[in-house]
């Protein structure tokens, strides 16, 4: 059967792509951020997952507000990045996992999560930055990725309690897949930040660290927040915490934190990197 063997939280901001493209990892500004990643890379290289289920939000590459899916997932064998309009380099295609994707779609739609199912889906920095962070130099082609995209842009958007349940449903779907595959789940984005308005520039370090703690040991507490509570505490783009909450929903039993690096600011945000394991089904 397919097994979720662990999970990762990571930032996905475009400034990371520029820093990597320009070789800035060792500069004083970026070093405290990039120094967090080797332990996670080592773990991934040791565990060699077959599949990454990656929660992210599209920032206006694939989806426009002419039709804005609340939840969308890819079921393709390959995904492409493209010009996002403001200068981060376009990166090589991402490998997909069509069979498991369709299995998940079949399972979760039957459970009541009405996904938009995509056979073509351009993937933006929300997905590509985390992959390149884990396998620098665009060496992610060997791992199969299932993109799961959550609307974090336009209200109404799914609430934390709903995205947590989505994660649980995806976890059940993976556990019911017969092929032996090792799966790691990435929750990308966040944490506190606000890009728009006179209130731009919010970073709430205390809130971010509390969220990371709760993601490990008390995720139900996070599901009591509404999106507007997240906006109040962490700024308007803190709703991206939904991707981390969805990730957490896929994990079972006692969750063990193997690694953490919180650093702020990078660009306009707090960055929360964590590596988690859970009690895998026997």
């Amino acid at each position, binding site marked *: 059967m397919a097994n979720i063997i662990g999970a990762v939280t990571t930032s996905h901001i475009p400034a990371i792509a520029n820093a990597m493209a320009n070789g800035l990892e060792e500069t004083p500004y970026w070093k405290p951020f990039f120094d967090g990643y080797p332990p996670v890379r080592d773990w991934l290289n040791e565990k060699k997952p077959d599949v990454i289920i990656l929660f992210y939000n599209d920032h206006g590459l694939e989806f426009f*507000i002419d039709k804005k899916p609340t939840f969308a997932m890819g079921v393709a064998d390959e995904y492409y990045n493209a010009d*996002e309009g*403001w200068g981060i380099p376009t990166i090589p295609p991402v490998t997909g996992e069509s069979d498991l994707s369709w299995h998940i779609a079949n399972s979760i739609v039957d459970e009541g999560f009405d996904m938009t199912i995509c056979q073509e889906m351009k993937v933006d920095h929300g997905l590509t930055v985390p992959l390149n962070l884990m396998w620098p130099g665009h060496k992610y082609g060997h791992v199969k990725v299932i993109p799961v995209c959550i609307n974090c842009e336009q209200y109404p958007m799914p609430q934390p309690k709903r995205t947590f349940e989505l994660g649980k449903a995806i976890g059940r779907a993976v556990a019911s897949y017969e092929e032996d595959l090792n799966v790691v789940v990435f929750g990308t984005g966040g944490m506190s930040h*606000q*890009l*728009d308005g006179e209130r731009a520039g919010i*970073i709430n370090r205390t809130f971010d660290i509390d969220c990371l703690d709760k993601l490990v040991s008390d995720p139900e507490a996070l599901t009591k927040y509404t999106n507007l509570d997240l906006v109040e505490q962490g700024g308007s783009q803190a709703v991206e915490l939904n991707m981390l909450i969805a990730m957490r929903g896929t994990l079972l039993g006692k969750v063990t934190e193997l690694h953490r690096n919180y650093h702020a600011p990078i*660009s306009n945000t707090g960055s929360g990197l964590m590596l988690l394991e859970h009690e895998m089904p026997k």
Partner: protein
Amino acid sequence: MASNYTDRQFQGTYLFDGQMAKKGYGLNKMCYSFNEQVARDEFNADPEAYCEKFKLTEAQKEAIRNRDVIGLLREGGSIYYLAKFTGLLKLNMQDIGGLQTGMSTDEFKAMLEKNGRGEV
């Protein structure tokens, strides 16, 4: 109004709900088009004509002319699409933060550093 998502207000924050999405549709559609180099070139060649093509309102055109990010938000711009417009102007997120808060880019960056260290 029932078509507002919420009556909860956050100072200096522009929640992008149905009303804003409707009001800003042409503006956001224009900014979405800036994913393509050919569109960026067309805008740069004749900004007024390009705004007209997407039927921007006078207030939206004025805000585009003045690079007035707050004005664009008020007129229904979504920050994710506006970022493509400001990217075309070669402004990054700290530049935009400064523009919106009345700070220089360096002052805005200093505020981010301070917030990041938890000194608030």
